[in-house]
């Protein structure tokens, strides 16, 4: 059997039998229902939606930190010590203080 002949024959079979172009009943109505039911894609609307979804977690985080900061400050008022900000200032400015001391 020659493969080339078989290949030619099978191609001829495929050409001789084109697929049906039958369209299912009311197919266009189905597509139209999908098209009209689908919201129009608007990038800005999608972005606004994402931002709106992000708003609630952001508010929650903000409230948590506010509460925590409030509790911390009330604790410090009870036992006055150097607060974190003061400690950070001291650490950052330590080098400047030292250089001032040596300059004198």
């Amino acid at each position: 059997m020659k493969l080339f002949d078989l290949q030619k024959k099978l191609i001829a079979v495929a050409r001789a039998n084109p697929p049906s172009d039958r369209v299912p009943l009311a197919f266009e109505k189905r597509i139209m229902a999908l098209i009209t039911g689908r919201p129009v894609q608007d990038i800005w609307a999608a972005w606004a939606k994402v931002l709106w979804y992000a708003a609630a977690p952001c508010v929650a985080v903000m409230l948590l930190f506010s509460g925590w900061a409030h509790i911390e400050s009330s604790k410090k008022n009870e036992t006055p010590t150097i607060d974190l900000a003061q400690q950070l200032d001291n650490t950052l400015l330590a080098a400047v203080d030292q250089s001032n001391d040596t300059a004198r």
Partner: protein
Amino acid sequence: MERTEAELIAAVLKGDAASFEPLIEKYSPRVFATARRYARRESEVEDIVQEVWLKAYQKLKSFRGEAPFEHWLMRLAVRTCYDFLRSHQRNRESAFSDLSEPEDDWLERFIHQPGAVREDADAAQQLVQRVLQQLSPPARLVITLLEIEDRSVKEISKLTGWSVPLVKVRAFRARAEMRKILAKIAKDKYL
């Protein structure tokens, strides 16, 4: 009075979605025929055609009107069919051991009397489908467009978005791939 295609498209672009329906009615037979070349199950065919129309609606802004709407739509259809083939390539049948009896008979008759076998026989059509399903997605697309639909390399290039040399290379490889599959049939069944 019946509106022209250009008028319908312009109306859709202005927001009148209902004007898209006559276009669906007019071109669905061609899109269905194209989809049936690549998918066997009717549910898959309907999914492909549905996707083609949804894409057509969404991308209608990109239709410039320089070429006929049908050409633009068929490009979309062919590319959607190619995506379908690529996403279903794992479903390609792996063996010819399950050739049906009529297919076996048709092959047997072809071996002994190549000129006498009928081209419209169901067995022959099933065998063609079986061979096409074995091809890789690019090979199947090229064989279908070039050999079965008898399109030119330039036309295939426009339909697929591949360059002309790439179409030629893929056509060469596709024919070799098909012969390899046919050789496997011959080896499995008659050697």
